[in-house]
C-alpha cells in the first residue's frame, strides 16, 4: 500500500517496479540464446549455438524483420554467415531489446504517474554514406570478432580496431561509433586471451557488438536537431560516464518554454576523448570549458536558453552563446514542484534499450538497508526494495555511500540492469541539526572550494600539464 498523503514527487508505486513484466523473460531468453552463440563464435557453430540463432529468428517471426532474420540465422548456423547476415541478427536482437525497453518504460511511467512520452521518434535519416570506407573497416572487424567469439579473441584480432578508431576519432560525425569501438576494444584487450576468460560479460559484449555493427550503417548515428528552444532550464543533477579514453557528463533538467508551453525533461551533454590517466577531477576540468551549464549546476542556478538547438529525443545541443546564467534554483524544489508535470521525449529506435533508461525521480520517506553481500545499499520504499546504484556517483564529488545511507530524500535516475530496477543517486537531502542539507553528486562540476576537492583539482591539473608538455615535445617532431 502506498499512502497517498505524501508530497508530489515522493509518490511512487514502488510495487510496480518489483512486479514481473509480462513477456520480459521470454524476450530476454531469446536475447540470451543469441548472446551465448557469440561466446563460442560463429565460425563453426555447434548445435547449441544454432538453437540460439533459431530462437532469435523465432522471436521476431511476427515482424517485418522475419524473413531476413530467418535466412540470416540459417546461413549463420551453417557456418556461412556473411556481413549482411550478421547485421540482420544484430537488428533482430536490437528490436527485441527495444520491446523490453518499451515494456520497462511503460512500467516506470505507471509507477511514477508522470505524463507519457510522445509517440516514438522517427528512425535515423538514411543519410549519405559518410566515410564509407571507415565504416566498412569497422564492420569487417566486428564480423571477425563474431566469428572468433569471445572465447576466441586474442591481441592480434582485438588490435585490429586501433587504426580504425584513430582514423574515426577526429571526425565529429563518427564520434559515436569511434567512442564505442574504442571502449569496447579496450575491454576486449584487457580480457585477452579469450580462451582463459573465466566469466564473460555475455550480454554486455553482445550489446556493444550489435550496437557498433548497426552504427556502421549509413545515417544510423545521426540525431539531428529538429528545432530550437527558448525558456528556463532547471537542472536536476549530473550523470557522468567514462571509459579509459572518453568521458561524458549529462545534465538532466526540466525545461520550461518561455511561450508557456508544457514543460519537458531534457538532457544537455558534453563529452571529450581523453588519455586514460585523466580521471577524477580531471574529467570536470576537461569538460568545464565547453558547457557553462556545469558551472550553473555546481552553483545551484537555473539558466535562460535562447534558441538552443534540441533533438527529438530531448537532447539539447549545447552552445554557450545561447545560454546565460539565471536565478538560483534548488534541484529538490525543482524535483518537488516542476518534475511531476515534465513530459519525457520519445526515444529513437536505436536507443530503445534497457541500458538507456534513466528517468529522474524523487524518493522520500524510504528506509535504508545494506544490500546482501556486496556492501551496497537498498532503499525500502513502501515495503519494496530498490537497489541503490551508488557506483555511478562520480569520484570527484562530495556524495558518498555514507551520505546516501544517512539521507531522507534522494533525487536520482531510475535505471534497469541485470533484471532489476535500480536508483542512481544524483543528490540527497539529509537532516543536519534539524535543517535539510543537500549533497549533490555534481557539486564539483564547475569547481570547488572543498579541501579534498581542491587537492584533487590540483593533482589533475598537474597530470594534464605533464602530458601536454610531453605532447608538445614529442608529437610535433
Amino acid at each position: 500500500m502506498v499512502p497517498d498523503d505524501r508530497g508530489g514527487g515522493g509518490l511512487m508505486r514502488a510495487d510496480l517496479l518489483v512486479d514481473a513484466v509480462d513477456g520480459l523473460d521470454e524476450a530476454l531468453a531469446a536475447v540470451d540464446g543469441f548472446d551465448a552463440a557469440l561466446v563460442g563464435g560463429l565460425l563453426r557453430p555447434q548445435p547449441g549455438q544454432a538453437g540460439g540463432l533459431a530462437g532469435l529468428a523465432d522471436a521476431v517471426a511476427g515482424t517485418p524483420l522475419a524473413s531476413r532474420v530467418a535466412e540470416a540465422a540459417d546461413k549463420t548456423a551453417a557456418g556461412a554467415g556473411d556481413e549482411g547476415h550478421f547485421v540482420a541478427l544484430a537488428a533482430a536482437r536490437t528490436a527485441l531489446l527495444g520491446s523490453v525497453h518499451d515494456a520497462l518504460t511503460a512500467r516506470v511511467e505507471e509507477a511514477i504517474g508522470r505524463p507519457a512520452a510522445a509517440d516514438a521518434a522517427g528512425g535515423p535519416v538514411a543519410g549519405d554514406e559518410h566515410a564509407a570506407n571507415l565504416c566498412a573497416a569497422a564492420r569487417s572487424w566486428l564480423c571477425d570478432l563474431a566469428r572468433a567469439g569471445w572465447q576466441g579473441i586474442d591481441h592480434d584480432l582485438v588490435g585490429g580496431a586501433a587504426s580504425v578508431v584513430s582514423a574515426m576519432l577526429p571526425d565529429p560525425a563518427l564520434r559515436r561509433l569511434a567512442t564505442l569501438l574504442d571502449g569496447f576494444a579496450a575491454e576486449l584487450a584487457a580480457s585477452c586471451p579469450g580462451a582463459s576468460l573465466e566469466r564473460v560479460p555475455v550480454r554486455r559484449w553482445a550489446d556493444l557488438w550489435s550496437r557498433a555493427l548497426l552504427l556502421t550503417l549509413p545515417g544510423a548515428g545521426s540525431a539531428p536537431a529538429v528545432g530550437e528552444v527558448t525558456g528556463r532550464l532547471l537542472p536536476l543533477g549530473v550523470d557522468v560516464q567514462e571509459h579509459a579514453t572518453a568521458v561524458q557528463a549529462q545534465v538532466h533538467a526540466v525545461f520550461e518554454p518561455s511561450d508557456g508551453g508544457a514543460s519537458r525533461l531534457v538532457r544537455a551533454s558534453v563529452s571529450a576523448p581523453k588519455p586514460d590517466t585523466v580521471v577524477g577531477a580531471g574529467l570536470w576540468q576537461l569538460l568545464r570549458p565547453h558547457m557553462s551549464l556545469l558551472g550553473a549546476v555546481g552553483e545551484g542556478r537555473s539558466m535562460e536558453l535562447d534558441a538552443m538547438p534540441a533533438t527529438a529525443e530531448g537532447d539539447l545541443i549545447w552552445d554557450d552563446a545561447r545560454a546565460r546564467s539565471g536565478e538560483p534554483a534548488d534541484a529538490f524544489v525543482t524535483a518537488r514542484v516542476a518534475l511531476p508535470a515534465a513530459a519525457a521525449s520519445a526515444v529513437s529506435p536505436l536507443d530503445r534499450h534497457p541500458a538507456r533508461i534513466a528517468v529522474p525521480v524523487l524518493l522520500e520517506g524510504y528506509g535504508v538497508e545494506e544490500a546482501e553481500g556486496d556492501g551496497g545499499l537498498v532503499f525500502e520504499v513502501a515495503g519494496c526494495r530498490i537497489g541503490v546504484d551508488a557506483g555511478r556517483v562520480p569520484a570527484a564529488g562530495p556524495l558518498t555511500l555514507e551520505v546516501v545511507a544517512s539521507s531522507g530524500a534522494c533525487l536520482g535516475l531510475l535505471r534497469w540492469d541485470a533484471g532489476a530496477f535500480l536508483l542512481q543517486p544524483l543528490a540527497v537531502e539529509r537532516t543536519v541539526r534539524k535543517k535539510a542539507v543537500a549533497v549533490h553528486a555534481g557539486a564539483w562540476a564547475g569547481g570547488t572550494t572543498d579541501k579534498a576537492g581542491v587537492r584533487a583539482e590540483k593533482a589533475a591539473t598537474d597530470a594534464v600539464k605533464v602530458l601536454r608538455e610531453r605532447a608538445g615535445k614529442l608529437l610535433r617532431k
Partner: protein
Amino acid sequence: MGDGALSVREKSSTARVVPSARPRKLAKVPFVELADGRLQGVVSSGSDIGRVYVSSVAAGSYAYACSTNNNRPCGGARGSFCNHIRALVGEAVLQYGAERVGRYLKVDAEGAADAHALTSVMTGSRPGPGDGSAAAQVFSRFLRHLAYLELPASTGPLPEMQWFPTTGAVAA
C-alpha cells in the same frame, strides 16, 4: 525478473569490465599500460628533458627491454632490471593496483603485495633481456595516447556512453 542460469555479471549491460585508472603523478612515468602481453611504458630521463626511455617487461618470462626513443639501449638494463623498469613497475602498481599488475605479469599472487615484492619476485627468477623491437610500437602507442588530448570536445549526445558508467563512489 529475467532471471535464469546467468550470473548478474553475465546478464548485466553495464558491468564495469576494466576499472578506471587510479590517479597518479605523471612526471616520472608519463605512460604505463598492460598490453600486448607486456607491462610497458615510457619513462622520463632524469637528466635530459627531451629524452624518454621505452621500457617493458613480458608477462610470464619477465624478459625486459629498455631503450631511448631514438633506439639507443639503456646502459642500466644489462643483467637485470634498470631503474627505469623499476620505476615503471612502481607506477603501474599505483595506476592499476598490485593485484592486477601481478595477475597480468603472472607473478605468484603471494608475492604480489606491492611494487617492491613484485619486482623482487621477477628479478629473483633471473630473467633475460627481451626482444627490443617492441620499443617503436610502445612509443607509437604513447604518441597515440597523447593525441587524445588534442581531440576536440563535443556537445552532441553520445548515447553509447550509457554503457560506460563511472565507478567513482565504489572505487574510492
